[in-house]
């Protein structure tokens, strides 16, 4: 079980690195007008966030102390959903580049 926890922690950290890098890349795609590609990548990005949530949940169930404030991320995600619904790509790029990325970096530091 300990080995599984270690592996899960490693996967979650890897997932965080990918998410942090993707935040900027997808934001740039939106800013450069590549909205179709950006939207496609955003689906994958949200799936990765979902995996991160799941990993944190499992780790906590296994009795691990994970010092992560998930609610911070949830709040930003709500803003992101709103921007997506109104196709406001200026706001979406801002959230990705300057809001969600900061939260993810903070999570990474505490992981």
């Amino acid at each position, binding site marked *: 079980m300990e080995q599984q926890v270690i592996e899960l922690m490693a996967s979650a950290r890897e997932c965080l690195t990918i998410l942090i890098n993707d935040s900027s890349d997808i934001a740039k795609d939106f800013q*450069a007008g590549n909205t*179709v590609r950006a939207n496609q990548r955003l689906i994958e990005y949200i799936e990765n966030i979902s995996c991160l949530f799941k990993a944190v949940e499992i780790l906590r169930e296994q009795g691990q102390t994970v010092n992560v404030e998930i609610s911070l991320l949830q709040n930003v995600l709500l803003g992101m959903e709103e921007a997506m619904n109104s*196709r406001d790509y*200026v*706001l979406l*790029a*801002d959230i990705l*580049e300057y809001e969600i990325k900061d939260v993810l970096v903070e999570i990474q530091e505490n992981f």
Partner: protein
Amino acid sequence: MKTQIETTRSGFPTLKVFYEDKEYYLHSKYNPLCEAETWAKGFYKKGELAILIGLGLGYYAKELLKIMDKEDRILIIEPYEEILNLAQETGIKELLDDSRVLLCLESDKKKLEPILRILIQEQFLKNSKIFVAPNYDKIVAVEKVILGLSKSFSNYTMDINTKLLLAYDWQQNYLRNIKYAIRSCPIKSFENLFTCPVIIVSAGPSLQKELDKLQQLHSRAIIISAGSATATLLKNGIKPHIIVSIDGHIDMFKHLQDIDYKEIPLFYSPTHHYKISEQHTGPKIVFQTTGMQNVLEWYNEVIGFDTGVIPVGPSVANYCLGIAYQMTSGPICFIGQDLAYVGGFSHAEGNNNRMSKDDVNLALYPVISNDGSELYSDYSLIVMGEWFESYIGEYPRDNIYNASLQGMKIKGTNVIEFEQFIDDFCQEKIEIEQIILNTVENWSKIHSGIEIPTNKIFEQLTVTIRKVIETTKKASDLSEKLLKKVKNHDDKDINLLLKKLSDADKKLLSLKNKDGLLFLIIQLIVDILHLWDEEDDSEYLKRIKIAEKSCFFYKNLHTMSNSVKKILDDIRTEGG
């Protein structure tokens, strides 16, 4: 709309707008400079005129300028005066001082027209691309701005010679098609003939993926093929029930020349290339279009029956909808009607007209597709789409479907998967070919007893055109004399010259009532003359322009009349 300037954490101002209970930032609320830099790199292409709808606070335009060539230009159209003022307050001096930048309020037509003239003179409009600044699509009816711009462009981009050349083609086709029209069946005979579904096939890129379903349809719906879609269908073993042809250019004939369309019922307007009529041996169904009342009545008189009319539209697919409306009360479905560069291409694979959007020499505009994605379209395609929307709006039916899922949205149509349309509506087999043949044969039986004096018709036309040639020659010489006198400030005998010109006018006016065809040529030249602006000229220049217009009008009418006479002589030699 309300606006608010905010200072971002990068220190640069950004602009927030409040519009219809919502708020939008027109630039990043964290770092507008950085955002604009990324935006500009994503859009700029060397050698293109960048037309930017939306100035905002000027960040996007400034970043474009940084990477633009010295020879390139940027035309900025700002729809809101308030935003332009805010931009000036926050600083756009570097934009205003740069000779590559042309900035104009959308409503300021007086400023916009000369700008367009400059751009045309410098050959810029041949290669231009429209960009909509981020979030302007939320606060402005962008499509209307684009269409307004495009209309102004097209007034300037089609040169006078092209217009006259088109008029000549039009005239030639109308006359040479007379002998085929006389033996054709009128579209009126097809009114409310069917209740079954109709599928209008256009040659857009998305047609490719529907071909296999069309192959399996087997007369469970009427397939109407629009223009160049015919080649794609026949190459794939699909025989449409009807092909529609309106295009007067020789290219359309060449496009059809190598395919076996000759037996398929041909619905055509007399404007279409006469060689298509010549080559086609199957049932022919003739129609005329609305908006040409003088020609319509004259033509009906010449051929001896009322053809019936289809609403005039910018493209053959528009006519197809008019035909479908007239023929059936059943559901109508578009396929391949993309109205945009789906997958980056203009037409389906295998179509001779297929072009990449990167190779077309046209201004491209962003539009929204049926599936919500953004794609590019051009002016003529957008106008086609607008026509569909306005036609469906005027004659609403709830059974108009659009199965071109990746194509541009057409308001008033129900979006549907083609397979679903077939499942829902195309279940019953109908003897479509037989019904069409019977209708044409019935018409022929009724009409066969009526003798049309073709030779006499052409003789009368020749007499009329000779009178026009004579009158226009006289008027052309008179107007040249007038121009010379005006230029030399010589007022002597000017009144006499004007009187003689007025007499020539009267003579022509009396002829136009007899000959609808001539009336349209005159109308075309008058339209061209309207483009010669004289608003800002001095009295002397105004007089010169009036005399120049007169010269232009009569000279061109004279040339055109000679061409028409030659066509008539040819027809009579060939045996009408």
